[in-house]
Structure formats: C-alpha cells, structure tokens
C-alpha cells in the first residue's frame, strides 16, 4: 500500500485549497465588514457578532432541527423495514429492486421538488392547503432523502453473517428476540450513517422549504441564503460556522449519549452480579 501513497496527493491539495483555506478565510471574514467580496474596502468590525442576538436565527435553527428530526424518524421507520425485507428476501436480483428504489433520483432533485409543488397546487390537493406547512416540507424531504437511509442499512444487513441468526435459533431464541438482540444491534452502524446522511441535508437544505414552504417555513438554510443574497458575506460566514458547530455538537451529543448508555448498562450488569456474589 505504501507505494501508492503519492496517489492521495491530489486529494490533499484539493482539501487544502477548497476546504481548509476557505474555513480560515471565513473565520477571518467574521471580524470584517465589507460589501460583497471586496476585501480592499474591508474594515475590522464585530457587527456580525452583534447580529447574533436576533431571535429569528434561533427560531429558524430550532425549526430546522424539528424538520430534520421528523424527516430522519420517518425515513428510518420506512427505510429499515424495506432494507430488511429486501436483504432477507430470497429474491435473485436484489440489486434490481434497489435500482428501482432510486429510480426517481436519476432526475434532477429540483425538478422533483417543483413537481411536488405542482401536485400540491392542483385541484383536489390544493384544497388541503398543504403548501406552506411544516408537514408538507417534511413529506417532500422524506421522498427526497429516503434512499440515503435504505442503502447503508441494506449494506450492513447484507454483509451480516447469516449463521449468527442460525446460532441464535439454535440457542432457543425466538425470532423477534433475535432481531432485538442480534440483528438490530449489528445493523446500528448502517442506521447511524443513514441517520447522518439524511439529517445533514434535511437540516441545512433550503430549496424544499423555500419551494414547498412558500416562504412560510423558514429554516436555517433559508436564513443563510437570504443573508448571502443581500451580499453580507461577513454575517453569512459567521452564521455558516455557527450552524456547522451546532450540527457537530448535535452529532457529538448523540455519540456521547450512546457511550454513556453503554457504560451505564455495563455498570448495572456488574452491580447486579456483585449482589449475587454476596449469597
């Protein structure tokens, strides 16, 4: 492997030029005040930070998290059974079924969103007044990102050693308990990558909320977009960094909670055994 190390060089150049440098530029821009990207007329300022007190930011952020949370929940509830059924079916061509599932993704996502907009505003559906509601935004987000949940779960289930299930059966464990104790815990890797892959775009996207939400559903993405549209790159940078930090924090929180639960479980088990030892 060492011989091919140099092959990763282009990627590192790419990473430094297009990811790491911009982050530092953005960080610097939060302390400047200027019009658009005209660095020549920039002056030092903390105006951007003063604007962070606006409650509209936090409302939009909260709304984004709510929309993303329900999107993930629904995607999981719909996606897990589908992945499970396809993986454990005796179909000869599972890949074909999966291809059919992602068929809509072959068309442009903007087109799909606009077609939902048209559908929601035609006769019968228009009467339901779906446009402009959180629910409609969540629905369209789910239809857009569902495959991102199905694929990683399907992959881990497919890779799972089937003899584990036989072993569980051999040890006298009924199927539902085997699912809870063996299959599901072992598929958690796929679930967590599915959750992240759906959560991130659902929380930060703005196209769906703008089109389907008709300006009534304001997510953090919409806020960011409007700030950049007004040529305020300084506040925009600060807001972007803030949103990224929030999301990183949320992910760390989930991981932290997970390990805490594990530790607590281990503690509980050992303490119950210590009690047993007193016999």
């Amino acid at each position, binding site marked *: 492997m060492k011989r091919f190390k140099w092959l990763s060089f282009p990627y590192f150049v790419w990473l430094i030029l297009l990811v790491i440098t911009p982050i530092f530029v953005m960080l610097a821009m939060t302390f400047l005040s200027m019009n658009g990207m005209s660095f020549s007329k920039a002056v030092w300022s903390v105006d951007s930070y003063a604007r962070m007190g606006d409650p509209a930011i936090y409302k939009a952020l909260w709304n984004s998290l709510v929309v993303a949370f329900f999107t993930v929940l629904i995607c999981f509830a719909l996606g897990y059974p589908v992945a499970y059924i396809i993986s454990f079916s005796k179909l000869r061509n599972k890949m074909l079924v999966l291809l059919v599932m992602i068929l809509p993704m072959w068309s442009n996502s903007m087109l799909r969103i606009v077609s939902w907009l048209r559908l929601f505003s035609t006769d019968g559906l228009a009467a339901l007044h779906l446009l402009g509601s959180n629910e409609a935004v969540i629905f369209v987000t789910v239809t857009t990102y569902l495959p991102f949940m199905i694929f990683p779960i399907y992959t881990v289930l497919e890779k799972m*050693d089937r*003899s*584990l299930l*036989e*072993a*569980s*059966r*051999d*040890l*006298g*464990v*009924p199927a539902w*308990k085997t699912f809870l*104790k*063996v299959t599901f*815990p*072992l598929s958690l890797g796929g679930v967590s990558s599915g959750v992240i892959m759906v959560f991130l775009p659902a929380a930060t996207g703005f196209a769906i909320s703008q089109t389907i939400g008709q300006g009534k559903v304001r997510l953090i993405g919409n806020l960011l977009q409007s700030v950049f549209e007004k040529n305020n790159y300084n506040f925009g940078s600060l807001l972007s960094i803030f949103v990224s930090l929030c999301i990183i924090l949320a992910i760390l929180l989930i991981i932290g909670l997970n390990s805490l639960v594990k530790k607590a479980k281990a503690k509980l088990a050992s303490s*119950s*055994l210590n*009690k*047993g030892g007193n*016999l």
Partner: protein
Amino acid sequence: MARKILELRGIKKTYGDNVILNNFNLSINENEFVTFLGPSGCGKTTTLRIIGGFEKMQEGQLLLDGVEIQDLPSHKRPINTVFQRYALFPNMNIFDNIAFGLRNNIYSNVYDIGTMNLMNQYGYDEEEVDALAKKLSHIEKPKEVKAYVLDYFKSSSITFKLVEALHSLAKKCRFKNYSSFKEELSIALKELSIESKLTFAKDDRFSFVSKCLIGEAAENDNAYKIVSSISKRSFKEEVIHTEVLKALKFVNLEGYEDRDITSLSGGQMQRIAIARAIVNKPRILLLDEPLSALDLKLRKAMRLELREMQRKLGITFIFVTHDQEEAMMMSDTVVVMNNGEIQQMGRPEDIYNTPVNRFVAQFIGEANIIRGVYNAPRRFTGLNREFKVSAHDFRLGDPLYAIVEREDFDICSLDIAKIRGKVLSCLFNDNKFEIVADVNGTKINIESDDRVKVGEEIGLLVAPGNIYCEAKSESKAKLLANYEGGNILEGTYLGNQRVSFLGASFKTYVTTFIPGEVVDAVIRPEDLDLVLEDVDKAFIKGTVIKSVFTGTSFDIFVDVDGTRLLVQDYQNVAPGETIGLRVDSYEVHLMKVGDEEQPKEIVAIREEGRRLALEAEEEN
C-alpha cells in the same frame, strides 16, 4: 453400547431436482463421538443440519429417545450446534455470548439447572434430585418450572408449615402476651413435631414470639433456604453467572468473560463457541467442521481436546469433517458418506483395516485399487499377474477391484518379487518414504522405511491377506456384514426377507438370497438389545455366562441353546440370569456361505447362475 439416542429413518432431502439424501438410515448411540466423514457435497452437513433442525426434510423420521422430533423447531430440541465459523455475536462480550441461550431461550432451563445446583449444595440425595429433574424436564416454560419448584419445596418445608399454623392461631383469637397463648402454641408445635429451644418471657408479644420461632425453624430448613434463594429476583442472573463461569473453566478460558470477541484467536473463538453450546446442557452437540478454520498445529491440539471434552461431558458429539485423519483420531464411530449414502459405518480401526468398498478405501487410506478378474478359486488376476487372495465368495470370472493399502506392499529383491515396478518418485514424509512406482503402466503407491532411487527397478510382494477384493457391483449386504467382532450365526434364508437362526425367524433387509440358501447372519454386539422385562416374549432367550466391564460398557456373553453371543451394553447383568435379546431388522446382516455348506439344490442353482454369468461375460 446398545442405548440409542438418535435415529434417522428413511430420510429424503432434495433441493429442487437435486437429491441430497435418499432413504437415509442411521442410528447413533448415547455418549459416543460420532463422525460423519466424506468429501464435500456428500450430504454430511445436510444430515447435520436436519438433526439440528435447520433444514426440513421431505420424507422420513428423526427420533430422539424413540420420540419423533422432526417437527420440533430447533430451539425445542436438546441439541446445540458449534458452527463452522463459530458464529459468535460480535456485539456482545464473551460472557454475554455464552449466557445468550440461558438468558433468551423461551424454554430456558435456568431454573432446572439452578434448582439442581442448590439441591446438590444442600446435600439432597441423588435419587430425589433425579426424580425432580425428570419432572421438570416435562415442564416447558421457565416461569412454570419456577412455580413448580417453589411449590415443591414449600410443601416440604417445616418453616412454611409453622408460618401457616401461626397464622391460623392468630386468626382464632387475639393474644396479648406469651402467657395467654402458651398452651395453644405448644399444641401447635407438637402437631408439627417442632421442638423449640427458645424460652420466652411472660409478657412477650405474639408477633415477637412467632418471629423468633420462624427464625429458629428456618435456620436448619434447607427447603426454606432453597425457596428463598429461588424467589430472589436476581436468582436467574446468579445461576447464569455460575454456569457461564463453569463453562469457561471447562474450555480452559477462565477470566476471559469480560473480553471482546474480536480480541480472540481462532482457537479461543472455537472454545467459546463450544462453551456457548454446552452451557445449555444439550444431549447432543453438533460440530460442523469446527477445526477447518484453524492452522495445522492448533487443529491437531484441538482434536485431542475435543475428544477429552466429549468424555468429560458424557454427551453425544456428532462431528462433521472431510479430514480422514481427524475422523480416525477422535471418533468412536465413523460414518463414511458419499453421494448421500452411508458407505461404511464402524470403529475407525475397522474402517481403516477393512474398507468395504473402493470409495472408502480410497478416501481413507489412499490405497491402491487394482482392476482385475476373479479367475480361479481364491485367485485374482491383475497387473498381468495372478495373486493369491483370501476372498472366496465371488463367481469365477467376476470382474473385481483389489484394494491394497500403501504400507502393505513390501519391497524385495527382484528375484523373489511378485511384481516389478520402476520408481517414479520417492518423497520423505512423516518419517516414511512415499514411493510411486509404475507397474506395467499402473501407478502403485507404496509406503516404506527405506529409500529407493528414482528410476530404479524394485520388486514388490504383498501377502494374500492384505489384498481386499471387491466386486464391481457389490451388494449392500456384503458391505455391511464385513464387520469384525460381530456374532456370526449360521442360518437359513427363508425368502420374503425372512431368515431363521437360533431356532427363530427374523426379518431382514436383505433380498438377494435364494430361499433355502444357507447364510451367515452377522449381528454387531452393540446392536443386540437386552430385554429384561417380559423375557418370555423375546425372540432370543439365553443365560448370561459372564459379564466383563471394559471401561465404558459391559461385554456380556450369553449362551443361547449352546451358541455363544456377545452383547455390549451399558447395563450389567449378573451371570446365571436368564435374559431376552432383541435386534432390529436392519441390523441383521447376511453373508454368503461357500458351496460346500449348501444343500444340493442351492449348489445347482448357483452353478447354473455362474454358467450364465460366464456366458454373458464371454459374449461381451
């Protein structure tokens, strides 16, 4: 060894048009190490999976202790499996892996095991423990087992009786102090024959007195202690903890319980897989090529260890392998399989020494197989030479295969040699030289202590007793009958699958004899079952001459009207006792007997047959 635990009858298994097993019959004895040996695709793993309940068969019966279990799901069978790649749960540590069955089985026998442990701890006598264990084995749900056990011990506990008596006393009248209920109490105690050493003051209250009395009674009341242990909420987890540690100790991995599965080596994973299976106390352990994933050195060590484990546990192991060395080293019984059929079944040494057909010989010993003809009585022609052989039950002109083991060829000087060959290769392996020689265009494998030069011409000798002959179309009867140590009884074939010997008529599976033909009936000692009750109804009756304990079972010699039979059984029978014997039809093997012992008519029919066969041969 007559105690059968598992029986497979007429099993048929197909995948689509592909027939894996067809009319497969096999019986397996208790406390034996049985190996299914065969090349891949021979049906050995399928058979194992049918026993384990992972595969459904199309036809046939599976009997455990004589009870059909083929419709039971795998979790209801007292059978556990060690999988080929171990199948340990990677999301759990070692302790949780081993505890998995005890914790999650809906028919978990945790309470059975826990109760037996407690009873042994408190010194209950074995008979009572066994009796209770038998009763509990019929109760399926752990909760019901728990309730039954609690009832059982409550009813035998003096403390619980005392509590009841005190309750009824308290209901009868209101007591103020000891002096007011002293007499009633002493009557009640006498009824329960409790002699209390406690003395109470006049103004002690009833609640205090009863508390003291209950405490005193409970102190020496084992049943009460058992009840209080079992009714504790943590009881199940405590039992699991003890059993898991016991299992870990058994597989020599003490102190590994908190480790992760991923931190283990192959050999350790193997042992954990065994521990996880045996902790459930199965009657039969199935092992599906468990050593194939290990390296050679470890594999050799694990063989001995597995064998040792089987002896210590005293349960039946059914082991599947394609490695003949493994099978030979570990097993009590080897079942050689090919194309879904049993080729030969017997002790390893019998299979090695007397393979019944070409397949077995080739699979077991890499023996030489020489094509030839049975051209004169006790003469075989092959390799352009005539050999003396011990076989005598073939027709003249029969095409044969002669099987000669590699080590049965002796290298000799050219002038006394029976056959001559040119050495093609000579390799040193396992302290022996493995030689391949070309004899008239046929390659012969030889094993020798001496080195020979490649290209050199060598002479070879082989003793008549070391040439095993097999007809090209062998009959099944002959295959099975070739079993050393069997009881050989002279009998007469009656026709219609019946044979008479020892003055009685028996059913047999053999159909290839002429009615009236004299035959030898062969019955293996372990296939004869003792009948101790209703002896008069048994077909064979005899008197025990002597009984010898051989380490695992008894060799019982029985005199039946002057004929001596050998019976192997786990039960002992006193000399002089009259007992009955029974044998199943598929365990009576018939062997051909030479012309000199046949009635004239049979000889005539045989000769006619031979003449026709010779004619047919010549026409070909």
